[in-house]
C-alpha cells in the first residue's frame, strides 16, 4: 500500500494536551445529564494516560517539525493551532496580483480578473479567441467560424480535460475582465439580469397588471406571468427582496427610523421570546389566546411588528415541485451528464446565486460554472500568550523573504532515524520489520542552539494500541554540545570527552575506534559529533496476527513509538526579558531552561509474514 517506508518524526504541540486558552476541555465520556462528572473523567483522560499516537485525536495535535514555530519570550513551541494569525497580503494565486482588502469587502474572496478553474477537472482555464489558436492544446471550438475575423468571440478552455465554456454555451466579447462578463451571462448565453434590472422589470410588470398581481401571486394558483417571473427569482434576488421586506417591516415597526439600535430593539422582540419555547410545548400558543402573562403583552406588541411576505417583491416564492423536466433530462443525459461529488464541491453556492431554480445546487454538467480562483493570503503569526510576532513575511506578493521567522527547528533538536545495519549483519529491507524479531534503529539528535543541552528520553515499554511492541531506549539520557561554528569543530573534538566526562563516561567507549565496529550497549551513546549525538533504540515488533488474524485498520501495521523528550539547557540572564526579571542580581547567573514535549517516531511497517 505504501511506497518504500521512510522513518519520520511528529511532535505534539504542548498546547493540545492541557486545556490551554482557558478552554474547558470537552467531556470525553459522554453523559447527557451531569456535566461536572464529565469534566472530571475528562481530565484524567487528558493527562494521566500515556500519549497514544494512534488515537484519532492525536492526528490533530501532531505536527512535523517544519510546521512548528517557537516563541523566544515564552520559550515554548507554537503550532498552527495555537498561533494568532494576521493577514499581510491578499493575492490571486493565478495572476499573482495583489488585492487590496477594501476590494475584498466588496468583491468577495475570489479573483475578479480572468482567472478561472475548470469546473470539470479543476485545472486552470485559459481565455482563447475562437479565431487565433495560440496553442495546439488550446484550440477552441470553431462552431461559428463566421465570427469577426479580429479576435473575438472568446471562450474559456481547459488545457487538461479539454472542457470549453462553449459546452455550457458561454462566450465572451472581450478577452479581459472575464469575471465581470460572466456575471452577466447565464449558462446557455442568455443575459443574466443584475439585481437592479430584475427589480425594475418586476415593477413595471406589477403596475401593468395592477392589484390583481399581488393577489394572484399570493394565491396557490401561479398564473402565467407569475411563472415567467418565477424563472427570474433566483436565490440572490429572493434574498435581497426578503431583506428589504424585513427591513421595511422593522422600519415602520418603530417610527423612530432606521437607527440600527432602535430597529434592533424593536425587532429584537419579534424573535426575542423564541428563547422560551421548547419545541414540544403548546402552552405558548395557548397563552396567545388568553393574553395574561406580562411577556405575552410584550409578545403581542412586538410580534405585531412583522407580517408575512405576500408576493415576489417581498421574497415569497411558491415552490415548483414539478421536477419532471429534470428527471427526463437525467434519463437523457445519464451518468455522464451529471455532476460528480467533487465537481459539486468546487461549485460553491455563490457561483449559482444568479441561476434561477438551482438555488445553489447544480446537478447536470450543463449547469457547471467556471470557478474563479479563490484568493490566497500571506499571513504573519503571533504568540497567543505574549503577542510577540514570531513569523512575518514581506508584504509584496512576489518576494519570498521573511522579516521574522522563528521556526522551532532552530530551537529544539531535530531527530533523524535510520535503521542500524551492522557491517556484518545484512538486513535486506530494514524498513520491513519482522514480528518478534528485534530490530535496532539509530536516533540522531542534532542540537541547533548555541548552548549545550541535556536530553532525557522516556518511552512506554510497550507501544499503545492493539499490537504492543517492546521498546528499549539504550541510552535515555545524554548531553549534546553546543552548535558552535564549524571552524572550531576540531578543537572541540579534542576536549569533548573530558568535558562531558561525568555523565558520559560510558560514552567514551562508544567513541574510540571506528564507531561501526562496536555493538550497541545499554547506557552507551552510539556516536557523537560536533552538535549531534546518536543513540540506539531497540524494538521487538508485535505480531499482527495474534491471537488470531484480524482486519488491520489503516496504519495499524505501522510501528510508532511515542517518546517524551525533555530538554534542559542554561542561558545567561542577559538577552531576554524573562531572564532579566528573574536574575536581577548583577552577576549574570545562568538560567536553567527546560522544554518538554511528546513526539512520535515512525520506524517502519511490521510485515504480516
Amino acid at each position, binding site marked *: 500500500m505504501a511506497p518504500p517506508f521512510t522513518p519520520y518524526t511528529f511532535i505534539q504541540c504542548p498546547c493540545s494536551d492541557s486545556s490551554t486558552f482557558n478552554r474547558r476541555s470537552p467531556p470525553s465520556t459522554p453523559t447527557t445529564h451531569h456535566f461536572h462528572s464529565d469534566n472530571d473523567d475528562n481530565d484524567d483522560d487528558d493527562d494521566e494516560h500515556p500519549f497514544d499516537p494512534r488515537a484519532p485525536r492525536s492526528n490533530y495535535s501532531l505536527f512535523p517539525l517544519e510546521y512548528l514555530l517557537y516563541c523566544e519570550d515564552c520559550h515554548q513551541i507554537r503550532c498552527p493551532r495555537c498561533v494568532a494569525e494576521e493577514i499581510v497580503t491578499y493575492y490571486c494565486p493565478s495572476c499573482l496580483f495583489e488585492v487590496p482588502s477594501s476590494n475584498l469587502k466588496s468583491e468577495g474572496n475570489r479573483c475578479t480578473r480572468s482567472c478561472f478553474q475548470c469546473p470539470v477537472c479543476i485545472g486552470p482555464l485559459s481565455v482563447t479567441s475562437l479565431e487565433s489558436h495560440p496553442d495546439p492544446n488550446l*484550440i477552441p471550438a470553431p462552431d461559428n467560424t463566421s465570427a469577426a475575423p479580429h479576435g473575438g468571440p472568446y471562450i474559456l478552455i481547459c488545457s487538461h480535460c479539454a472542457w470549453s465554456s462553449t459546452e455550457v454555451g458561454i462566450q465572451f466579447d472581450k478577452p479581459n475582465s472575464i469575471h465581470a462578463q460572466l456575471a452577466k451571462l447565464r449558462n446557455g448565453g442568455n443575459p443574466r439580469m443584475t439585481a437592479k434590472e430584475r427589480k425594475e422589470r418586476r415593477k413595471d410588470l406589477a403596475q401593468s397588471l395592477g392589484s390583481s398581481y399581488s393577489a394572484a401571486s399570493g394565491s396557490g394558483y401561479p398564473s402565467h406571468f407569475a411563472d415567467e417571473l418565477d424563472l427570474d427569482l433566483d436565490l440572490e434576488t429572493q434574498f435581497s427582496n426578503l431583506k428589504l421586506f424585513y427591513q421595511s417591516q422593522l422600519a415602520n415597526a418603530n417610527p423612530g427610523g432606521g437607527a440600527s439600535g432602535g430597529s434592533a430593539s424593536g425587532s429584537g422582540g419579534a424573535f426575542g421570546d423564541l428563547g422560551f419555547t421548547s419545541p414540544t410545548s403548546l402552552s405558548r400558543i395557548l397563552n396567545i389566546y388568553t393574553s395574561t402573562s406580562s411577556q405575552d403583552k410584550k409578545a403581542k406588541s412586538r410580534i405585531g411588528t412583522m407580517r408575512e411576505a405576500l408576493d415576489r417583491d417581498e421574497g415569497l416564492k411558491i415552490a415548483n415541485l414539478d421536477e419532471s423536466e429534470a428527471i427526463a433530462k437525467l434519463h437523457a443525459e445519464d451518468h455522464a451528464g451529471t455532476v460528480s461529488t467533487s465537481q459539486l464541491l468546487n461549485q460553491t453556492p455563490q457561483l449559482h446565486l444568479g441561476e434561477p431554480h438551482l438555488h445553489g445546487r447544480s446537478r447536470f454538467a450543463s449547469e457547471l460554472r467556471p470557478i474563479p480562483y479563490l484568493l490566497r493570503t500571506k499571513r504573519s503569526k503571533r504568540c497567543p500568550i505574549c503577542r510577540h510576532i514570531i513569523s512575518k513575511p514581506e508584504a509584496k506578493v512576489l518576494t519570498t523573504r521573511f522579516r521574522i521567522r522563528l521556526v522551532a527547528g532552530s530551537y529544539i533538536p531535530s531527530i533523524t532515524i535510520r535503521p542500524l545495519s551492522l557491517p556484518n549483519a545484512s538486513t535486506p529491507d530494514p524498513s520491513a520489520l519482522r514480528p518478534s524479531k528485534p530490530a535496532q534503529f539509530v536516533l540522531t539528535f542534532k542540537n541547533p542552539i548555541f548552548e549545550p543541552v541535556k536530553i532525557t528520553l522516556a518511552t512506554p515499554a510497550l507501544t499503545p494500541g492493539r499490537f504492543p511492541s517492546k521498546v528499549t531506549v539504550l541510552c535515555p539520557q545524554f548531553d549534546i554540545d553546543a552548535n558552535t561554528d564549524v571552524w572550531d569543530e576540531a578543537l572541540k573534538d579534542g576536549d569533548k570527552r573530558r568535558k562531558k566526562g561525568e555523565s558520559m563516561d560510558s560514552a567514551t567507549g562508544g567513541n574510540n575506534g571506528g564507531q561501526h565496529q562496536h555493538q550497541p550497549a545499554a547506557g552507551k551513546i552510539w556516536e557523537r559529533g560536533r552538535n549531534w549525538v546518536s543513540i540506539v533504540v531497540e524494538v521487538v515488533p508485535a505480531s499482527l496476527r495474534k491471537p488470531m488474524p484480524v482486519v488491520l485498520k489503516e496504519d495499524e501495521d505501522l510501528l510508532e513509538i511515542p517518546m517524551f523528550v525533555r530538554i534542559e539547557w542554561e542561558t545567561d540572564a542577559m538577552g531576554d526579558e524573562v531572564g532579566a526579571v528573574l536574575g536581577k542580581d548583577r552577576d549574570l547567573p545562568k538560567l536553567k531552561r527546560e522544554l518538554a514535549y511528546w513526539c512520535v517516531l515512525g520506524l517502519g511497517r511490521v510485515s504480516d509474514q
Partner: protein
Amino acid sequence: MAAATTSSSKRHSILPPAQSGPKPPVQFSSSITIADSAILIGTHPITISTESVIHPRARLDSLGGRITIGRRCIVHERSTVGAVGTEGGSRSKREEQPNGVTLGDYVTVEVNASIETGDTVVGEGTHVGVGSKIGGGAVVGKHCTLTPYTVVAAGETIPDYTVIYSNGLRRQDRRGVAELRNKGQARQIEVLKRMIPSNPSKFQ
C-alpha cells in the same frame, strides 16, 4: 553562465551509445525526418509515411510485429512504439506478418509514452500524452487525447474524440477541433524538419 562542456561544443551533443538489436527492414517516405539517434530495432518491417518526425532517442521496436506510422506523426524522444507488452495482448502471434502497432495520421506520441505491440491501433489525430501507456491490442479511436500518465489497458477500445484525464476519467471532446489540431501539427513539423538533422540512410 558557461556552456555545459567546453570541449563538447564541437560535438553538438553528448549521446551515450544506445543498446542495439537486430536491424529491421524499413520503408521510409522520402519526406520524413528521423534523428540518427533514434532507435529502430526488430525483425518485422517498420513503415514511416509522409512528413512524420521521429525524435532523438525515440524507440521503434518491431520484434512483436510490423510498425506502421501514418502521415505527419510526431514520435517524441524516449517514447517506445512497439514495446513488448507486460500483458500479452498480442492476438496475432501466429501470422508470419503480425501487426505490431499502427499509428494513424497526425498521431503524436509524447515523451516517455509507450505503445505496446500486438495489433495495437492508434487513430488519426490522437495525442498520446507524456508517460502514457497503451496496452497491446488496444484500439484508440480518432482525435482522442490521453493526458499524461494515462494507462489504456491491453485490448481496450477507446471511442473517437475521447479525452482521458484525471487518472482515468473519460469524457467526450466537444471542441470539434480535429482539423485545427492537424494544422497545428503540420506547423510544428515544419519547424522540427529544420531543427532535427534527419538521417534516414542510417536505418536503410
